């Protein structure tokens, strides 16, 4: 099980002050260095932090309670994600969903055509519309033209 990566921002600030003091000293800015050292020292006392270097970043093993909570969190997240996948058609895009719908439509139209259920184009059109429960006559006409090979 991976650890928590704990970043203590107070310890980070103290470290930054200590490093600023060293940098200022190196640049010969003794007064600035002194101020940074004093600020770091005061912050250290106020914080109760004993080792800012060690506490700035720590890898802390999860406690048993945290492990249990994390498992519950991630199970809940997976369940929620599954629900979203269902709602969105398992992540099918609109185009993919349209493709599926179109394929089904053509298969249905072909089945009717091959079964000679209707004898002429007008009847076919009406039949397809009734069969599919759709009012999208333009789409049906387009399909028919494709089936006829006239488009």
């Amino acid at each position, binding site marked *: 099980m991976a650890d928590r990566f704990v*970043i203590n921002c107070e310890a980070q600030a103290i470290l930054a002050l200590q490093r600023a003091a060293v940098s200022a000293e190196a640049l010969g800015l003794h007064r600035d260095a002194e101020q940074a050292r004093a600020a770091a020292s005061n912050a250290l006392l106020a914080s109760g932090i004993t080792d800012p270097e060690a506490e700035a970043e720590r890898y802390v093993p999860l406690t048993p309670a945290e492990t249990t909570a994390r498992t519950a969190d991630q199970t809940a997240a997976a369940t929620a*994600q599954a629900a979203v996948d269902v709602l969105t058609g398992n992540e099918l895009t609109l185009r993919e969903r349209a493709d599926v719908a179109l394929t089904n439509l053509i298969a249905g139209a072909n089945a009717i055509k091959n079964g000679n259920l209707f004898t002429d184009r007008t009847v076919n059109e009406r039949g397809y519309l009734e069969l599919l429960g759709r009012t999208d006559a333009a789409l049906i006409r387009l399909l028919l033209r494709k089936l006829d090979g006239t488009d």
Partner: protein
Amino acid sequence: MAWPTTAVVTGDLITAAQLNGLPVKIADSTAGSAVATFDFTSIPSHYAHLFFIAYLRGDTAAGLANLAVRFNNDSGANYDAMLFNIRDVATLATVGAAAATSAVCGAFQAGTAPANSFGPCQIWVPHYANAVNHKTVDVRYGMKLTTASTGQYTGGGQASWRSTAAINRVTLLPSAGNFDTGSRVTLYGYPG
């Protein structure tokens, strides 16, 4: 106040007013191994806003994992969120959540995404230290799940925490698995 007219170099003096107007890096941490969370504790209260910029990858055996955020270690059902993401197809995916136990703040690529690829994410937490009203979050994120154009995602959204407490701790959690080695999060404090 006169602003510098050239780039500031080492040794230049700038005024306190100029310094106080700049964002300050509070922490910058890169995971040296897979980690369960990025847990920023003892966040100082004197900034006006917080800004997280993240470079994330997960180790779960999937294309992506969601990124969730908790404030002050509150795992109660106190978070609401609304996100969207788009990719190079005619579709828009949305995720809404109410009274969740963490704030969903985007997604990032995981184990089955192209090797060595990481996803960007930025999270603003405005007025985080106020102790009067609820907190809110503004998010932008992206991910590369495959090398095809349709595998490129970008998204954004908002989330909120039903609490008036000042934020002093922010925990980033993956919805599955861990943050992978090399994931990095930097936290800035922005002055008012």
